[in-house]
């Protein structure tokens, strides 16, 4: 008998109508009573809510913009790291493709972020303040520092096509810029995990421990895959290793989330999110296998197939986590059930002990 159940019977005018006892109990499995026997506001479920309406507001973000911004940020950060490695080890082709990927992804990522603003013209308001309590603020500053660095490094690749006077300057700045970008690049790949974890959205907030690792690994899979697919097989070895390592860690983190989150993990395997994540899993596995095979055979076709699969897997994973979060915010059960358990537990230990 719950505490409220006792209250209910205490205040009743006893025996007035000889009505059924236990009217205050919660419905469903937890309350040990089926829905429908008394004035419960919630249809079939084992928790109470206000007409089944959401407690939280779902993110107002467009999945295309924001999941895209996470994915592209991952590609950008990972590619910048690969570009620096390629530069230092004299892999000219790999350097070129990763530098181009880094600047393109950074540009598109910023464009997606700005496009999603309710007032895109006010993007610069992000740079009024720097707030450690806001991952979006920190991330915007990181991206703003990162973008010019990868841009200069990319210009270095197009050196011959630049007007004469700037050529020597870019040539001198190319490598230092690319190397400086590696200071920020790892954070570019992981801060987006902190960004969504720092919300009230049950799936995202509860997965706060894994998300930065998952997003970082997903970034490695995507950027490694893209680099393997776009460079010569002879130079692609490090890109393959990065892609495969990213894929393996991403899968491990995904499994850890499913295990640790309990019922809150349900939206990850249902509906649209579930379909995206299933696709992500298979795509990532296939990509890793193909790249591993290519590491033995050095095949361009395998590199392209495997790399593309890894890129797709990373994109699907971001979309899957995005949609699962949105679902967990709109469905009241993922807010109410864990919090009710916590509250009941606290009441028991607090009052009893």
């Amino acid at each position, binding site marked *: 008998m719950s505490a409220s159940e006792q209250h209910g019977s205490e205040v009743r005018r006893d025996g007035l109508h000889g009505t059924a006892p236990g009217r205050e109990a919660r419905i469903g499995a937890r309350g040990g009573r089926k829905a429908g026997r008394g*004035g419960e506001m919630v249809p079939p479920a084992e928790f109470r809510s206000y007409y089944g309406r959401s407690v939280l507001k779902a993110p107002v973000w467009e999945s295309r913009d924001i999941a895209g911004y996470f994915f592209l940020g991952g590609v950008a950060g990972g590619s910048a790291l690969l570009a620096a490695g390629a530069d230092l080890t004299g892999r000219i082709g790999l350097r070129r493709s990763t530098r181009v990927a880094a600047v393109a992804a950074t540009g598109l990522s910023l464009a997606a972020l700005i496009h999603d603003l309710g007032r895109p013209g006010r993007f610069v308001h992000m740079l*009024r303040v720097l707030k450690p309590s806001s991952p979006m603020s920190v991330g915007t500053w990181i991206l703003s520092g990162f973008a010019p660095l990868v841009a200069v490094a990319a210009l270095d690749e197009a050196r011959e096509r630049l007007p004469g006077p700037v050529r020597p300057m870019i040539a001198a700045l190319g490598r230092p810029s690319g190397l400086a970008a590696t200071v920020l690049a790892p954070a570019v790949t992981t801060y987006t995990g902190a960004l969504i974890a720092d919300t009230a959205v049950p799936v995202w907030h509860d997965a706060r421990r894994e998300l930065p690792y998952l997003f970082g690994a997903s970034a490695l899979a995507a950027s490694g895959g893209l680099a393997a697919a776009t460079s010569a097989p002879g130079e692609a070895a490090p890109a393959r290793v990065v892609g495969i390592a990213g894929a393996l860690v991403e899968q491990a983190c995904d499994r850890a989330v499913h295990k640790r989150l309990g019922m809150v993990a349900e939206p990850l395997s249902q509906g649209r999110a579930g379909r995206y994540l299933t696709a992500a899993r298979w795509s990532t596995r296939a990509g890793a296998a193909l790249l591993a095979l290519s590491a033995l055979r050095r095949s361009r076709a395998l590199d392209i197939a495997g790399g593309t699969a890894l890129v797709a897997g990373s994109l699907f994973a971001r979309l899957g986590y995005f949609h699962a979060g949105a679902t967990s915010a709109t469905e009241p059960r993922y807010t109410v059930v864990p919090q009710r358990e916590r509250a009941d537990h606290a009441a028991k230990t607090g009052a009893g002990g």
Partner: protein
Amino acid sequence: MSDDNPPRMGFFTDTSVCIGCKACEVACKEWNAIPDDGLSLLGMSYDNTGMLGADTWRHVAFIEQDKPLGRQNNAVIAMPTGATATHASAEAVHEGLGQKHGSELGTETGAIRPGPLPGGPMPAPVTPDGRKELRWLMASDVCKHCTHAACLDVCPTGSLLRTEFGTVIVQEDICNGCGYCVPACPYGVIDQRKDDGRVWKCTMCYDRLTAGQEPACAKACPTDSIQYGVLDDLRERAAHRVENLHDAGVLEARLYGADPDDGVGGAGAFFLLLDEPEVYGFPPDPVVTTRDLPRTWKHTALAAVGVAATVAAAFLGARR
């Protein structure tokens, strides 16, 4: 805070005296010139507002329950009425809310159509003579003006701000509509106005407060269910009120958001409820998300180091 600041002000919403007149909703809309957000019949008792949103800063919830309120002998018992339709109507609403659980702005609810009830005919009466008890819970919801406000913490532009009264407001000339505050709020309060792009929520009538006036809703409330005042005084008054209600046999009376040790450090707008918070659409144990951010940052930094190390190792290992 410096000494010239006024004390922290707040709302105490005593739902036990709310009569569901919605004067607060109307006064809020009028005073703050909030645009209309649709007109619909939701099938949720007398609640045709739905929930808080960008264009609804006070929302009166109506909950019908088959049970008595305290020792009160309500009229329903003496009347030859049948069973209440509370469950059946909840089913119908649930059906109409659809996939998104009514989480959309304002009064949008998806398709609630007249027609046969999804659960078949009206449920049979529980009592032999067909009479039942009924209590009607009403509660006027509002932004909680949290001590630790997630919306304010995560705002990347500094648009969300704490005032000298300890309340939380949006500076509309700063907000760029990034939308981060929306899923950050543990109560689902703040929301984006679609046609405008920016977010809006209760300001506790900041303009009135600075002029020494009480907020429009508190002023309009005919039963003093909404009380405005110095937060510490309100907390004291609320504790007394709970005691009184317990003495009167309303044992289910409880405070919500009054505890400075709760997950948001106590709400600046707190409530006296007659049932569990989730019944009114409140989260049972809200926590400000930024409480966990320091640890998340640590994991983020560690993950970043891992990313860099993986790439470095890949190049070192792949040396030709």
